[in-house]
């Protein structure tokens, strides 16, 4: 086994000195405090932090906790063998197994185990990997299988092989695993799409592919002695590992949620991949997101291990970024492109990533779908439905039954939510279940420009042509004007007449008035959508149970007309109606150990409490208080006369808000509050008040696993006073001779947009682009 220094930690002495001598500051200090306090307050609830804390402090209690974690894992190995997950989804178990091997190696460097213990643990770790995960790696077709599963298996086999084939008493099993793992690992990286996007959605990019890259690069560099592998083109396709890191960063939307493309939908992002990207590339995109968009209280497995924050701390760079460009505007010919304002308050992505033929469970059919985000709040809806609930996108021919998901059990599911109709794109003849049925290039042409003209377009005719043979052209171009509004041009041409629908899926709520569709999110962001060319009929429909997050439902808006050539031009204008004023800090806090206090009892205890916290994180992460689930906070605040809103932290569980002894109803944020901070309007009776006594009750996760595998979100973001601001409303729009003029109640905006010119055969001419 590697013996000298902790595997993959660049310089343990420097890191240990920085931490133990109190040299960390700012967010890095906050992060270490969170890891250390969680690890010490509740080691079995935060087991993935524990070995790192022991390695750093070397204190007896921390080391004892870490020993217990390793032995717990070893004892888990046998019962784990009877688990459906282990037998059918072994890649999910291989990656954390490799992580435990790394942590075991770390602990051996501080002599945490006796010689006999070390031998016992080592033998079990090697043996288990050899018969389960080495076997698992060999089930995956080589070289065809390029996905998070194979990456996990090849990486973990290489890591385990490397650790245990070195030093004294090298293992032959480890040597074989290293040989076979390193034979396949570079090819898995090298055959990833050049965009860095594997097509498996943000979840797998963030939780497996992204976090695997730093480890793969580091271990391959150690094995080969080569340097800068992050930037190397890997055979056979020339993909660079750094592209995966970049795509992980690009998946962040303003406000910190990830793109809900493909399976799983909106969610928070992980951090260590960004820290490694910042460390190795120096590019601002990584720093920006790490420092401005990420939250600490999102706890989810990276490679099915909850150690994201540990690696974030290990890799967080000291240096400043080397470039000015924030990277929010990006384009990948095989995936999509973004149009983002300088202040990031306006965000549009148009996407066309390849969908999986026949059964698009993970890589959805979303040719040219657009997603909009305004003032750092998502306005579009996309993702996956509520588990086990019926919804509108379950089609008769998209049911599937499989027997390889669970032992002795057949699983039946519907993959209709992966088909075209569940996305904000173009639907032909109401064919919502449209999908590809064989392998081919699904996109004909793409383009992008940033600067004076800022646009993105794609011709996605092939996938439509497969389904409707007479269709010659399906095209969409989105453009951004005056740093203020978007235009979306749709064009469809076929031989025969078809019903052509431009579909948008929005978050609730939607109303249509005077041909303008207005979307008003629960957070007070308003989107106005107008059709400038064409006279389609507009229909709206509430879709229950899709997507699951953030609202458990969505609003479908269809613009439809029959024809063999249809062109539409949409105006999208987003406004805010709320302004954040001041953050409220220094809350009195009490823990409610049994979760049984009523309001009166809690207020009495709060009055007597001298403990105050900023309320940016769960109290046990900000102080040395125990990791209780239920907490009460209280603060007297000043407010301006007039209407007022309170912005609560995101990710509160079972929140209750009392203002001047009266409870305010939070039901409308019950679902969305997990991912988006609620803005709660205080009833009119408070308008003239200038002092408010605010009491908040909240439950928080008490460990890694409270999210049941989907990641826990603890409250974060603080409490803010907000006041209404005048909404910018469209009053008049004209589009003539390529000039677009938008008059609002506050401004006049003038931009230019030339429609794509199409030849008789439906093909665009170059001037139009």
């Amino acid at each position, binding site marked *: 086994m590697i013996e000298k220094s902790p595997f993959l930690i660049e310089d343990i002495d420097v890191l240990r000195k920085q931490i133990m001598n109190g040299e960390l500051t700012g967010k890095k200090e906050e992060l270490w405090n969170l890891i250390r306090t969680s690890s010490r307050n509740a080691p*079995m609830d935060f*087991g*993935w932090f524990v070995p790192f804390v022991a390695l750093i402090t070397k204190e007896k209690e921390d080391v004892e906790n870490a020993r217990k*974690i390793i032995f*717990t*894992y070893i*004892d*888990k*190995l*046998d*019962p*784990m*063998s*009877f*688990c*459906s*997950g*282990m*037998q059918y*989804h072994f890649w*999910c*178990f291989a*990656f*954390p197994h490799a992580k435990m091997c790394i942590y075991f190696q770390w602990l051996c460097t501080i002599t945490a185990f006796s010689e006999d213990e070390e031998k016992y643990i080592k*033998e*079990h770790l*090697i*043996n288990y990997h*050899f*018969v*389960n995960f080495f*076997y698992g790696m*060999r*089930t*995956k*077709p080589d070289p*065809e*299988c390029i996905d998070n599963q194979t990456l996990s298996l090849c990486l973990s086999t290489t890591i385990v092989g490397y650790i245990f084939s070195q030093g004294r008493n090298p*293992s*032959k*099993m480890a040597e*074989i695993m290293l040989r076979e793992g390193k034979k396949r690992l570079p090819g898995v990286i090298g055959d990833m799409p050049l965009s860095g996007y594997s097509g498996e959605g943000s979840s797998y990019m963030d939780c497996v592919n992204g976090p695997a890259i730093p480890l793969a690069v580091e271990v391959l560099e150690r094995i080969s002695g080569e340097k800068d592998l992050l930037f190397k083109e890997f055979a056979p396709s020339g993909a660079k590992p750094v592209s995966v890191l970049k795509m992980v960063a690009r998946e962040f939307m303003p406000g910190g949620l990830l793109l809900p493309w493909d399976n799983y939908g909106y969610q928070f992002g992980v951090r260590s991949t960004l820290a490694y990207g910042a460390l190795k590339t120096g590019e601002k995109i990584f720093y920006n997101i790490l420092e401005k968009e990420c939250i600490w209280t999102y706890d989810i*497995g990276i490679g*099915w*291990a*909850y150690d994201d924050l540990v690696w974030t701390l290990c890799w967080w760079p000291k240096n400043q970024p080397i470039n000015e460009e924030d990277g929010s505007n990006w384009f990948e010919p095989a995936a999509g492109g973004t149009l983002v304002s300088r202040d990031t308050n306006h965000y549009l992505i148009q996407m066309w990533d390849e969908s999986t033929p026949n059964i698009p469970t993970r890589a959805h059919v979303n040719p040219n779908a657009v997603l909009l985000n305004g003032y750092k709040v998502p306005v579009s809806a996309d993702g996956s439905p509520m588990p086990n609930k019926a919804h509108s996108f379950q089609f008769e021919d998209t049911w*599937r039954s*499989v027997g*390889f998901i*669970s*032992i*002795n*059990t057949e699983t039946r599911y519907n993959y209709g939510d992966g088909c075209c109709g569940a996305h904000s794109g173009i639907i032909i003849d109401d064919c919502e279940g449209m999908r590809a049925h064989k392998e081919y290039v699904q996109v004909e042409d793409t383009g992008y420009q940033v600067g004076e003209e800022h646009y993105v377009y794609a011709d996605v005719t092939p996938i439509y042509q497969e389904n409707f043979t007479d269709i010659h052209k399906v095209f969409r171009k989105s453009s951004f004007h005056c740093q203020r509004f978007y235009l979306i041009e749709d064009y469809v041409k076929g031989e025969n007449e078809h019903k052509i629908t431009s579909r948008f899926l929005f978050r609730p709520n939607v109303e249509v008035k005077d041909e303008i569709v207005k979307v008003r999110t629960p957070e007070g962001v308003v989107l106005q959508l107008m059709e400038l060319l064409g006279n389609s009929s507009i229909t709206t429909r509430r879709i229950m149970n899709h997507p699951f997050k953030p609202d458990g439902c969505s609003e479908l808006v269809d613009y439809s007309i029959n024809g063999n050539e249809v062109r539409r031009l949409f105006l999208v204008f987003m406004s805010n109606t709320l302004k954040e004023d001041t953050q409220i800090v220094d809350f009195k806090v009490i823990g409610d150990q049994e979760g049984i206090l009523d309001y009166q009892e809690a207020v009495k205890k709060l009055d007597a409490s001298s403990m105050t916290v900023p309320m940016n994180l769960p109290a046990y992460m900000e102080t040395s208080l125990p990791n209780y689930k239920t907490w009460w906070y209280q603060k007297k605040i000043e407010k301006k006369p007039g209407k007022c809103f309170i912005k609560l932290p995101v990710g509160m569980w079972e929140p209750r808000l009392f203002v001047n002894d009266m409870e305010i109803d939070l039901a409308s944020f019950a679902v969305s509050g997990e991912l988006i901070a609620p803005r709660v309007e205080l009833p009119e009776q408070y308008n003239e008040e200038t002092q408010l006594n605010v009491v908040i009750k909240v439950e928080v996760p008490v460990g*890694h*696993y409270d999210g*049941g*595998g989907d990641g826990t979100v603890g409250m974060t973001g603080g409490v803010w006073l907000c006041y209404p601001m005048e909404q910018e409303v469209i009053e008049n729009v004209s589009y003539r001779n390529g000039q677009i003029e938008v008059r609002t109640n506050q401004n006049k905006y003038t931009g230019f947009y030339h429609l794509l010119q199409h030849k008789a055969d439906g093909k665009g001419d170059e001037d139009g682009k």
Partner: protein
Amino acid sequence: MVNNYDIMEQVLLHPEEIENYLNHSDWRVRYAAIISMGETKDKKWLPYLAEILRFEDTRNLYSQPAVQGFENSYDDTRMAEQLVPIKEIFDRDYPEELREDWRCRGRVKQACLFAIRDIGISVEEILTILHTYLQRPGEDYAVCAASAMTLGIIGHKGSIPYLEKALEIDEWCVQTEARKAIRRLNAD
């Protein structure tokens, strides 16, 4: 948990000792011995491999009932992330020999198939076994995929109907290996 680590290491380090362990009671040792055979690429192992495959077919590899639950955990991938003490709960006690079959499933068979592939020589008796795997309902997909892959190396045109049948199995790895094998055999 059974730990014959030293023997597994021994059989991999010293292929000349393989025969001593082919009937070892611990399937992990047999698994290591078979991988050691594949490493040697020696055709003398083919009769042994056929015999082992026949023996594996007599075991109750796939008869595990779904667990009733796991103390502190779940019967799915969420267990992977948990560093907590867990315990499986079955509807009743099962003999240890049977539980060993369930832990093993198709692992030893897969190791045999890859060893045969690495040796790379066609033997009719073995081809028949491989063809059988591709037709047998309930056979582990890892075994079916390895069978298809191995047939692509040692099979002949007569294997193609079996591989075409395997394309009907709704599992991506099996379909991919079957497709590859058909292509390869048609090209020969």
